[in-house]
């Protein structure tokens, strides 16, 4: 259990049975009044946000969260199947749970999956993934220095802004946390 004085931004707590994270925190106290801990909270299961204020003596449950290492195995329809590195147990995650991560996942990728009471909530990929550019307009010859970007696509259709010197067939590194181009790995 946390007491209200432990509350802070980023703390993971359980509210009404759901895992939540405090996204904003403010300590308020009228000069002669009681301390009020005002929180903005996001439900990690549903993604929805809400406000909640706590009093001095209030207790808040810790979220029973656990992170385990997995390897991505295969796609099965809309599901993505991962196997537990320790137990080989399989876990299925839906496309909507993966969000944009589904564009960056590749076979045998090592990932971390976050569980709340054995229910998979979120998957964290390695920070960078290498992907081939399959579709982009050719850039101007010799133009390797400008900061101008142009649209491009990778094999699964994900659209990404790349520098003008990137061509079809090039392998680029993408930052999975932002979904943005990081650098070029090799020329196609």
């Amino acid at each position, binding site marked *: 259990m946390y007491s209200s004085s432990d509350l802070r931004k980023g703390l993971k707590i359980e509210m009404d049975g759901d895992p939540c994270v405090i996204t904003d925190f403010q300590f308020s106290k009228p*000069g002669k009044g009681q*301390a*009020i801990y005002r929180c903005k909270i996001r439900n990690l299961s549903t993604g929805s946000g809400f406000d909640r204020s706590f*009093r001095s003596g209030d207790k808040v449950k810790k979220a029973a969260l656990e992170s385990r290492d997995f390897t991505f195995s295969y796609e099965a329809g809309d599901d993505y199947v991962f196997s537990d590195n320790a137990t080989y147990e399989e876990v299925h995650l839906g496309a909507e749970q993966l969000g944009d991560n589904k564009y960056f996942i590749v076979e045998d990728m090592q990932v971390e999956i976050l569980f709340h009471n054995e229910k998979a909530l979120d998957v964290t990929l390695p920070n960078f993934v290498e992907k081939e550019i399959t579709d982009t307009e050719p850039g101007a010859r010799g133009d390797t220095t400008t900061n101008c970007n142009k649209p491009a696509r990778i094999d699964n259709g994900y659209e990404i802004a790349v520098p003008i010197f990137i061509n079809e067939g090039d392998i680029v590194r993408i930052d999975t946390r932002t979904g943005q181009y990081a650098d070029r790995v090799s020329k196609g």
Partner: protein
Amino acid sequence: MIKNLRERDALLQSIRVFFHSEGFIEIETPVRLKTPCMELHIDAEPSGDHFLRTSPELCHKKLLACGAEKIFEVAKCFRQGEQGDLHNPEYTMLEWYRTDGDYMTALADTQNLLRKVVERRRDVPSMFSNDWKIFTVAEVFEEFAGWNPVEEFDADCFDFDLIEKVEPALPKDCPVVLKDYPAELCALARLKPGNPQVAERWELYLGGIEIANAYSELTDPVEQRARFEKWGEQRLALGKPVYDLDEEFFQCLKQMPPACGVALGLDRLLMILTGAKSLDAVLPFRD
């Protein structure tokens, strides 16, 4: 940061110039106390077999009882567990008292002080305008929270509605004073002669931030003891430490003439003057 050190220095100078021109003398009183002031929601930091003061109030009143007439102190105070954008467990309070006046005299002092503080500044934030708005607590609660805490008091609702409904709705472009608090929130203020439902207490807000608290001081030792004892019992019920009562203080109250006093958060004032949103900008050694 260095700019704000200069701002603090200039602020302190203008405060001292103001009080000396009004005939006040600057005093120093003990930081370590055997018997900190007993208030329901203010917790003192232990310091060996003493406590660090949460306010210099009781010492100042003892000096008034001994004949001091106009006194002020730039006082480091300590309050356990208060940490946030607008709170620091160690902070500077500007506290002053004068005999021969009530909470409205204290308001005139405060208005003159703030005028002095911004007098030579080039950019003065809009909330320091000369157009002061003065409301009763009953008025603002009826308008913004839909109930009257003077007629029917609810301590828990009062704190939440003050923070979540009333304070955000107060005008931000001028000084705002809330006065005549429900008698239950009298603290060390006297009840209004002829209307004991309210205490002669006001709070000043600048830009929606609570900045100062003032009373017509309670000088009745019997009433004061009863209040401290009640808050002691309430603290006990909440599992908070209960402080010993300062018997010397009750003795002094018998001699203390009518007086008024103000406690003003100096770090917050500096923060507002410099346009900062958090005490981080004006306190260089924050945890």
